[in-house]
């Protein structure tokens, strides 16, 4: 019964979305207030019905309703309740439902926080989002309905993929999807602006906070995914350039470019058509990511079951959405005009180069990801593109970008006096250079790569400090100056510091990690990286839905015990799949990482053990966290808050904190 309610709610949601996609847009074209006025109630209705659908599916999982095919495929009575809930998005159909639901959340959020926008703009934005929802709901109902029945019901379910039975996977997909879907708002604003022919600084000011929020979610989503891969896959890597990782990374790169070019459009009324194109491209890549993951066109560890029918549907949807947007762009963009003029050396030009480099980086990732497909389509055989390509292409693009990143916030709009800028930054750059050259020596080994990486990181830190000093130092009251800067300024600097922290993490791990794969008998001691790893053997332990071999490793340094680690090798009851649970001692200066390989046959309890020492690895994710916090600060800026305060007085439904949390 409950699944039927869910199915029904989905169908109602589809019709609400269809109405939302048609009436308000017609209303905006004819200037009909009644038709435009239905947009907000429809957005609310769509949210309610998709919410009901999601709850129904969750209920089916919690109640172990194995007469629902999707539940039978992805759950099991032994599965702990928390994973039964996250199993809702553990497969293709359910994750689509999550996608659609989150889209309705964003649509509702736009409906609530758009009181200050002109009515026809709101109608168009919500209408475009409604049309996107139509595509996804149709896709779900026609090819991938999560409520399909399995009759007679299965006695028990096939269990959730053990890889996904992990706290990280409970929050990683919702976060990432919030990011993916969030770019639909910037996209809808861009399309609305193209439709309305109104493209100016106010348009940029409206779409900017939405873009930033989506970007924050996406940053956190990707970081969580990377962190999960680090501790769950047991290989100690944090990024694999897997097609699905790339599918999330490409929109992130373009979203980052979009955030920066929106700043130029808002402040200087420049780059307008470029900004629109970026908004279209960022969301298009989100959609393309969905296509790549779900059509089976590329092989990846993340792929959902391949089904040609689904592939055709998404491709058609993709062609309609992206094709129509780009045609609209080709038709309307020439009329937008070019906007404010600027010198070859100015903050505008620096931001432009940021945009170009980020877009080229996204393009190079794109080519690398789809190259196997292109070659196959041209009859050139099957091949795969690995990390060496991506590293060889990506890193050289990032070096100039990061160097310019230090200059950007220091440069003035319109025109920069180059010698003057050089004079301002020379000490900052000099300091960064000295630190970058000397610091690796304290680690015992000097290498060019480490120095270059550290130079970039410290150059950013130094330029952020310089900017803060220039703004805050003075004869008058320091606190007043501190308060005098806008939150978005602090947000930007914090996010830039996050990039520096991230680079330090990547550089130090690449430069100084130790990886040892050894056979260890009970009582064996391994000395590496200044630590002593003592293997105390493996004992058997019973988990809720698995049996684990639990290893015990004592780590000491200079005779003193540092920590005890308990890595596990689990065998899940239902799927029979073995799973590695690494044990990690996390520290500010690095991780001690131990995972169990395989038991050595015909031995007295010996195991293959992997021991990794990963200096500064957590800085990678800390950097992402700082970038996200920077984004949160930026959208908390007064000029957005004023709107929201006015809003809050008018009608309080959802505080901003909740939306950005």
């Amino acid at each position, binding site marked *: 019964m409950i699944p039927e309610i869910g199915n029904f709610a989905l169908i109602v949601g589809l019709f609400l979305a269809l109405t939302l996609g048609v009436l308000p847009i017609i209303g905006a074209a004819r200037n009909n207030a009644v038709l435009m006025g239905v947009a907000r109630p429809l957005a609310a209705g769509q949210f309610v019905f998709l919410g009901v659908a999601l709850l129904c599916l969750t209920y089916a999982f919690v109640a172990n309703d194995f007469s629902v095919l999707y539940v039978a495929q992805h759950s099991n009575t032994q599965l702990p309740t928390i994973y039964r809930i996250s199993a809702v998005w553990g497969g293709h159909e359910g994750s689509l439902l999550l996608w659609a639901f989150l889209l309705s959340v964003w649509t509702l959020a736009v409906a609530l926080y758009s009181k200050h926008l002109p009515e026809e703009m709101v109608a168009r934005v919500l209408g475009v989002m409604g049309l996107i929802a139509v595509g996804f709901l149709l896709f779900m109902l026609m090819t991938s309905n999560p409520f399909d029945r399995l009759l007679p019901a299965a006695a028990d379910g096939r269990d959730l993929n053990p890889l996904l039975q992990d706290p990280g996977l409970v929050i990683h997909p919702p976060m990432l999807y919030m990011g993916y879907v969030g770019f639909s708002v910037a996209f809808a604003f861009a399309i609305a602006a193209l439709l309305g022919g109104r493209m100016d600084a106010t348009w940029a000011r409206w779409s900017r906070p939405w873009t930033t929020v989506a970007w924050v979610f996406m940053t956190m989503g990707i970081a969580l995914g990377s962190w999960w891969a680090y501790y769950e896959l047991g290989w100690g890597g944090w990024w694999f350039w897997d097609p699905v990782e790339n599918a999330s990374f490409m929109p992130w790169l373009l979203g980052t470019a979009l955030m920066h070019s929106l700043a130029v459009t808002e402040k200087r009324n420049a780059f307008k058509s470029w900004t629109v194109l970026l908004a279209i491209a960022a969301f298009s890549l989100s959609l393309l990511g969905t296509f790549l993951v779900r059509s089976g066109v590329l092989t990846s560890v993340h792929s959902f079951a391949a089904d*040609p029918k689904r592939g055709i549907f998404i491709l058609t949807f993709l062609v309609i959405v*992206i*094709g129509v947007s780009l045609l609209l762009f080709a038709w309307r963009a020439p009329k937008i005009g070019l906007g404010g003029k600027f010198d070859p050396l100015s903050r505008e030009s620096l931001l432009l180069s940021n945009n170009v480099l980020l877009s080229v980086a996204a393009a190079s990732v794109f080519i690398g990801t*789809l190259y196997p497909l292109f070659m196959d*389509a041209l009859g050139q055989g099957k091949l795969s593109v690995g990390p060496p390509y991506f590293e060889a292409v990506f890193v050289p693009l990032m070096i100039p970008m990061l160097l310019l990143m230090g200059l950007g916030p220091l440069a003035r709009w319109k025109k920069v006096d180059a010698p003057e800028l050089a004079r301002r930054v020379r000490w900052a750059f000099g300091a960064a250079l000295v630190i970058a050259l000397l610091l690796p020596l304290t680690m015992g080994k000097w290498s060019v790569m480490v120095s270059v990486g550290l130079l970039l990181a410290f150059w950013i830190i130094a330029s952020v400090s310089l900017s803060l000093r220039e703004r805050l130092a003075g004869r008058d009251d320091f606190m007043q100056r501190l308060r005098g800067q806008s939150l978005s300024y602090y947000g930007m600097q914090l996010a830039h510091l996050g990039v520096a922290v991230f680079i330090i993490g990547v550089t130090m791990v690449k430069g100084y990690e130790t990886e040892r794969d050894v056979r260890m008998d009970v009582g064996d001691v391994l000395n590496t990286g200044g630590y002593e790893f003592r293997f105390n053997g493996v004992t058997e332990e019973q988990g809720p839905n698995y049996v684990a071999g639990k290893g015990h490793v004592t780590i000491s340094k200079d005779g003193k015990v540092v920590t005890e680690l308990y890595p596990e090798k689990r065998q899940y009851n239902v799927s*029979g799949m073995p799973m590695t649970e690494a044990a990690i001692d996390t520290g500010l200066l690095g991780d001690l990482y131990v995972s169990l*390989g*395989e*038991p050595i046959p015909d031995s007295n309890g010996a195991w*293959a053990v992997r021991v990794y020492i990963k200096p500064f690895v957590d800085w990678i994710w800390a950097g992402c966290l700082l970038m996200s916090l920077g984004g949160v600060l930026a959208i908390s800026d007064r000029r957005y808050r004023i709107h929201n305060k006015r809003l809050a007085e008018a009608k309080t439904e959802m505080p901003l904190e909740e939306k950005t949390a």
Partner: protein
Amino acid sequence: MMRFILPFVVFVVLAVFLFVGLNLNPREVPSPLVGKSAPAFTLPQLHEPAKQFSPADMKGQVWLLNVWASWCVSCKEEHPVLMELSRRNMVPIYGLDYKDKQADAELWLKKGGDPYVLSVADAEGRIGIDYGVYGVPETYVIDKQGVIQYKQIGPVTPQSLTEKILPLVAELQAK
């Protein structure tokens, strides 16, 4: 005007590629190797790395070369079918353990049973490239002259066995 239509043109080209890619993928690409001699190799045997195996050793016999790996999920599905086939003693099955760790592979065979006369270890996947392996499992039917007569992509199922592989094997053995 031209530069504004450019993104659309690029997208159309991309969409065409995606469409072609979509149709390529259903995993039944005919192997260019069918009808050609099985590529030669000499690899250490999985259980006794000191000993080598080469397809040339099999001249005069019809045999199956099954590409498998302990990390491969579909191989689990296929495994009972191969066990049953090896019990029936109709055709020798040789395994090519693809991009695998020896310990993992041996453990896998110990747990699930070993349907293979012997397996060879292709740890780096070099031989897999020669054979055009792009998804594990794959199974090749090789005749007495060492020519590949058929390639099964994906797991061997009872159906594919009775409908395709076993009739072909019988026909080749009669030659």
